[in-house]
């Protein structure tokens, strides 16, 4: 439970910028809200958070797959990258 906090690791080479992150979050919010106004079944506590994960993590992962880059994370995602 109480572990010493770790220093922020430097971003890995090729890590998308905050700008891309912002665009992903914003587009997730716009698409989800717009679609759910007319499709109320989307307004569900499982669908909502998963929509964000699918949009913010799934889309870049899909792009990586198309580019034949590895998608699975490193063994410890909190380990300092080299």
């Amino acid at each position: 439970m109480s572990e010493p906090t770790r220093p922020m690791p430097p971003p890995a080479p090729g890590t998308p910028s905050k700008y891309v992150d912002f665009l992903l979050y914003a587009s997730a919010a716009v698409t989800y809200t717009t679609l759910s106004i007319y499709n109320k079944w989307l307004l569900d506590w499982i669908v909502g958070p998963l929509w964000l994960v699918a949009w913010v993590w799934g889309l870049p992962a899909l792009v990586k797959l198309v580019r034949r880059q590895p998608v699975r994370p490193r063994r410890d995602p909190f380990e300092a990258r080299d």
Partner: protein
Amino acid sequence: MSWAAHQFEIYAVEAHLPKKMVGKISWFAIFFGDFTPDFLAKFWVYGFNLNGHHYGATKPYEWHRGWPGMGFAHTLFFGAIVCLGIWAWKHNRAWTIGFLLGFTAHVLTDVNDSIGTMLLFPFSTLNWSLHTWAYAATVKGGKYLDAAAYYSSLGFAMDLFWFFVVLGSWRVLTREFWRTRVVPADPHVWSWLGQWIDERGLLALYRGVFFYGACRMVAWATWAHVVARPVINGVKHNGYPLDLSWTGPWWVQRVTLPHVTPWIVLPVTLVLLGAVYFVANTLWERMESGSTKAIAWRNVRRNTT
């Protein structure tokens, strides 16, 4: 009932933990604590239709918050029982206290609608309600009317209040906060999830409940006031009328359950909030000696001497 407020208050609790609990309370526990009352009671409130037959509670308000019914799921007594169960099972104070705080937030904010919650159950089955807005879940109106009434009343203001509380503590949504305060409190769960999802995905998962709350608030409010064309008392409206008066909106029938006088509800609710805070603070230190980690350390010391 509250809608998106329940999603926002999870982050509000996480952002305003007592100093000694910072980085040590499980965010998942707060989430499940806040989520449990409605998870147990809400499905049958709206029910479902199958082959032209409606399956669900005949009196949704009584089922949701009354006794007999599932109203006990919205009581501090039930929360305490579940916390005892978690402690007996896992000996994990991060989960036990986290669940208690999330559960308490849900039960106490729900005193605002017209049926409220049985705060002193099992000693009393009277409901405690501030009657701030009308509880509107009905068999006929279902979820749509309930949402329309909530987002046309002071319930909408309640959602916005919690939304701005979280925005005022915006750091709770940052990557740094998640890394330094949230992950260390639940390293096993996050690293297990990290087998499949990278950090960006895990962070999105953490932010997902806030995202859901914000989006559902906008979506339901937009539908209720822009898209819907309700007929109320024979008059067609462009959107449900907004009514920010106490116990509003006027166009929905306000249901109640046997309750105490509203004047004592706010002070008693605040006293109970303080009591839960005091109990959590007191138990926190004592639970350290009984926690799984402490037991493990004792075993290590015993084996090495």
